[in-house]
């Protein structure tokens, strides 16, 4: 929504938790607010702004600046309106001559130690100190600058995204409190006392050297120019803003893109965004520069062979070339010889169109999405047990949780804004169980310590979950009433007999799980008896040979303890990328149409056939790994890959590369020449999230608008490119705007019937299902009954993975993510985020390192059954002996050269989290890395020499 730039509305203090209404008078206006509301906030509600400096509505009132003083009948002195709660019948005056004098005197003192350089200050016109001085009518400062002051205090410019100018600091503590209350990192403090007081990062370190995670909460909270974005210093105050949705992780934060003309000068977390409520992380807040990076490709390109230079062509030529080659392949090798992979980084409308192109244009169902390699087990497991392939809660639900179970998820790194919410709840006293082979931050963070960290052996998740269920059942801690009323009783009886078997006892499974049985028993008891219990899980659950089984075991635990269908509980899959939920919702899997309806369902198929005017194939198409296997056998020859980098992100890289090289026609649509595109014959330049309209759906089923803030660099939004390709292939599409695509989705998908761009504008965002039964959406699912009717307790036998450590490969490698980088790093590596993580490293326990003579910083070879690579070692007790860990954000690391083809039995989601390896000191890169560097140089050269042709 285009709007001229205005600072976001600030009520001064947080909203009170709904209490009984209290009526009072403020400057003669009668206002009614909930009990617990501050006088400052009540005044704002009444249309009266009380001047303030240390107060902001994202932080608890502090009462230090003494600018918000008011007069209240019957109260002595001049109480601070921010820390004074309303009382019935209170009579408040915010504007009197005496108050004006007091405030002006206070303000005068502030300004006496503040540089008077407003005209050259980067926040001139967007500064609360300046505004407040104006509001108070300050006309002179009587004290001069001759005395001691802080006007020459040094600047800290260590952080690439913001500077700290101590000379402009008024020591209001908003930054310190934001770091504590909003972010939960506690990196900032006020050091010294009285006149010597100053903001300090860490132990008097620079911001960059401190524990600061660069979330930007302090910058947003700062009322002066003390903490200012570098981009604002460079460009100045924005002149207009557009509200949109972040394109990084599955939290789906709402942002205001602040612009000067067509240049984004700042991404400000949107206070009204329901997923993030005004908070952000270092990626969404600052790492948007990739959108205008010089590596962006602005012209379509084609080539007949990957050994030839690229030819720059027009859109028409590229589309015609692609259509002709795809049709020729189909004529020669059959209808099923081509397919597509869509991306969870793209919008709902884009992925919907790609699957439509495949089903209606290609005439097959060879469409798959990157969710195949992350959360496909969530879809299978939750659909089987609960009836819907989605999480059950809104993020805000965690505020009502008493026991949090985090399993195979690292929220503070991978979903940082939710991580901050979670940490807040934990600081308030919620109990915490972490099940993870690695000591993630939540295990031991400032003011947080997990009650139980079950450091499970990689691959033994199902054993742990079964053991927990066994303890709960054998000790009679399950919720019989919930189970009787809400679940399939026959199946529960069946499951009960299964889980009661002594083979599931923690003691019996201790060798497999690596978890002390007494700890597991205590954790199970806490989960069952500690009040509202909620489960948050991630790829550490799904990316296993029993990923789907583990998801079902999680759902079983929630049903067993009655922790589903209300606030504070539930099953919450933490989606990796921004639109994993949406891409799955939109029918991107080869066996189902939008809304998770299987192709074999004639009624559903007929619905789509009528809308699209085609006959649909009722048989499932190929999954991503099937496509690659078939490519190597010569049966699959053409691939349209939109926004996905399978050559880096998918397992067993050498296998993937061989499959890509075997294709007759690989079409890549992306914003950069990614690793996959180096094998491509057609490159269709994509548009970043800032260049298009559409919607993303986050991990809480929240559909949020993505709004175009700048023109598409290559002239077309991604949905337009797919539409052009469809038309060229004889599959007519004539959408004028993505809203029309959403209208079609809504017509065809019962859970989306009530969704439209107009409703999204009205509500800001909508959690599906949204239809006649839930017109404003559904924050909590399965409230009165499960989507499938009765909850289904699936039998979850533990079957050990085939991927086991032995004498040759004695360590188990598990992979994960880091805060500053995102997925394959294509975006974040092209920003200053690489300052924090310039390379992937191998975490190894000190004992394992010592055994191998490895020291921190050494190059080590990591050899698995399928390949080897070389990484730099990082000796760390975060991993336990026998386990090593790495990330996959840099292509040269080759993390997926090591990972295997093993996959989840139900969905083929790769088993990224368990790879048996050996680690040894080396002195040179692996053979694959050497080949890869050579290949990369060759492809970069071919790109640089691209010419019109």
């Amino acid at each position, binding site marked *: 929504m285009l709007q001229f730039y205005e600072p976001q509305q600030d009520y001064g203090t947080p909203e009170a938790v709904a209490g009984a209404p209290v009526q009072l008078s403020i400057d003669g206006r009668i206002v009614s607010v909930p009990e617990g509301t501050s006088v400052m906030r009540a005044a704002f509600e009444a249309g009266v702004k009380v001047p303030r400096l240390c107060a902001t509505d994202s932080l608890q009132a502090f009462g230090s600046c003494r600018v918000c003083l008011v007069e209240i009948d019957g109260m002595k002195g001049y109480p601070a309106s921010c820390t004074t709660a309303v009382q019935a019948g209170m009579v408040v005056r915010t504007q009197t001559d005496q108050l004006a004098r007091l405030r002006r005197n206070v303000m005068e003192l502030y300004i006496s130690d503040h540089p008077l350089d407003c005209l050259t200050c980067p926040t001139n016109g967007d500064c609360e100190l300046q505004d407040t001085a104006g509001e108070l009518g300050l006309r002179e400062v009587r004290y001069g600058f001759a005395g001691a002051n802080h006007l020459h205090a040094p600047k800290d410019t260590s952080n690439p995204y913001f500077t700290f100018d101590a000379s402009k600091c008024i020591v209001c503590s908003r930054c310190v409190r934001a770091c504590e209350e909003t972010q939960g990192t506690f990196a900032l403090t006020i050091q010294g006392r009285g006149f010597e007081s100053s903001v300090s990062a860490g132990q008097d370190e620079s911001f960059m050297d401190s524990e600061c995670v660069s979330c930007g909460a302090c910058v947003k909270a700062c009322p002066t120019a003390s903490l200012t974005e570098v981009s604002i210093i460079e460009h100045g105050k924005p002149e207009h803003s557009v509200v949109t949705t972040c394109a990084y992780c599955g939290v789906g934060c709402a942002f205001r893109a602040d612009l000067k003309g067509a240049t984004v000068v700042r991404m400000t977390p949107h206070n009204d965004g329901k997923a993030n409520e005004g908070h952000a992380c270092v990626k969404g807040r600052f790492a948007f520069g990739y959108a205008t990076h010089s590596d962006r490709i602005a012209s379509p390109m084609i080539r007949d062979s990957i050994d030839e230079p690229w030819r720059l062509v027009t859109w028409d030529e590229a589309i015609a070339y692609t259509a002709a080659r795809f049709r020729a392949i189909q004529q020669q090798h059959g209808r*099923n010889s081509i397919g597509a992979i869509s991306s969870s980084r793209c919008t709902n409308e884009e992925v919907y169109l790609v699957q439509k192109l495949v089903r209606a244009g290609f005439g097959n169902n060879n469409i798959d999405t990157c969710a195949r390699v992350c959360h496909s087990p969530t879809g299978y497991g939750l659909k089987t047990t609960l009836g819907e392939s989605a999480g059950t809660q809104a993020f805000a639900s965690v505020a009502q949780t008493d026991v949090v179970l985090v399993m195979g998820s690292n929220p503070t790194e991978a979903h940082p804004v939710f991580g901050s919410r979670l940490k807040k709840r934990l600081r308030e006293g919620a109990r915490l169980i972490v099940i993870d082979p690695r000591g993630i931050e939540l295990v031991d963070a400032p003011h947080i310590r997990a009650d139980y960290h079950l450091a499970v052996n990689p691959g033994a998740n199902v054993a742990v979950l079964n053991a927990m269920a066994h303890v709960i059942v054998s000790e009679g801690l399950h919720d019989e009433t919930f189970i009787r009323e809400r679940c399939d009783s026959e199946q529960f009886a069946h499951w009960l007999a299964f889980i009661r078997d002594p083979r599931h006892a923690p003691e019996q499974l201790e060798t497999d799980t690596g978890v002390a049985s007494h700890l597991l028993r205590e954790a199970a008891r806490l989960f069952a008896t500690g009040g509202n219990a909620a489960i948050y899980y991630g790829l550490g659950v799904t990316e296993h040979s029993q990923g789907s089984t583990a998801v079902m075991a999680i759902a079983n635990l929630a049903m067993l303890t009655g922790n589903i269908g209300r606030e504070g509980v539930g099953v919450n899959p933490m989606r990796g990328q921004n639109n994993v939920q949406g891409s799955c919702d939109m029918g991107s899997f080869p066996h189902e149409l939008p809304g998770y309806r*299987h192709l074999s369902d004639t009624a559903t198929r007929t619905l789509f056939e009528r809308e699209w005017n085609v006959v649909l194939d009722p*048989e*499932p198409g190929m999954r991503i*790994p*099937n496509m690659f296997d078939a490519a*190597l056998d010569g049966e699959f020859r053409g691939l349209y890959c939109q926004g996905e980098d399978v050559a880096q992100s998918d397992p067993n890289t050498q296998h993937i590369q061989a499959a890509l090289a075997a294709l007759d026609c690989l079409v890549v649509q992306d914003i950069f020449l990614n690793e996959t595109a180096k094998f491509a014959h057609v490159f269709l330049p994509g548009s970043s999230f800032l260049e298009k309209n559409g919607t993303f759906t986050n991990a809480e089923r929240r559909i949020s608008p993505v709004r175009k803030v700048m023109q598409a660099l290559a002239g077309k939004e991604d949905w337009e490119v797919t539409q052009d390709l469809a038309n060229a292939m004889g599959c007519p599409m004539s959408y004028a705007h993505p809203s029309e695509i959403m209208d079609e989705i809504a017509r065809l998908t019962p859970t989306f019937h009530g969704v439209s761009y107009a409703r999204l504008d009205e509500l800001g965002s909508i959690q599906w299902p949204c239809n006649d039964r839930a017109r404003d959406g559904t924050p909590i699912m399965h409230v009165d009954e499960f989507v499938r009717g009765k909850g289904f307790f699936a039998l979850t036998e533990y*079957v050990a993975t085939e991927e086991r450590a032995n004498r040759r490969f004695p360590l188990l490698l598990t992979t994960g993510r880091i805060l500053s980088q995102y997925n394959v790093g294509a975006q974040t590596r092209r920003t200053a985020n690489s300052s924090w993580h310039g390379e992937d490293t191998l975490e190894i326990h000190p004992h394992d390192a010592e055994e191998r003579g490895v020291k921190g910083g050494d190059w080590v070879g990591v050899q698995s059954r399928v390949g080897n690579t070389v990484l730099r070692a990082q000796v760390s007790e975060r991993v336990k002996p026998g386990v090593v860990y790495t990330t996959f954000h840099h292509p040269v690391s080759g993390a997926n050269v090591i990972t295997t083809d093993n996959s989840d*039995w139900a969905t083929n989601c790769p088993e990224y989290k368990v790879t048996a390896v050996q680690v040894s000191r080396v002195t040179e890169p692996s053979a694959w890395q050497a080949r890869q560097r050579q290949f990369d140089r060759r492809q970069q050269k071919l790109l640089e020499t691209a010419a019109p042709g």
Partner: protein
Amino acid sequence: MSRQIEQLVKMANQIALNVAAGQDEVIVARETAAHIRKFWTPAMRRQLLDFRRAGGAVAPAVAIALAALDNTDSNRSDTQ
């Protein structure tokens, strides 16, 4: 054995091992067949059936499942 067949055998055996673990072989075979029917392409099913017909080894429950699939797929192709 091509890599593709190798993978299909591995996938089918893995499905049989997990889909109804601990239950009677008839149930395991039935669930395995249903799973393969629901998620595999006809070409993948056909390849595994051909492999089996040629004497290829699969888990016992998969062998039963494939026999059932052979019937249903044959019936379907007869009627199409």
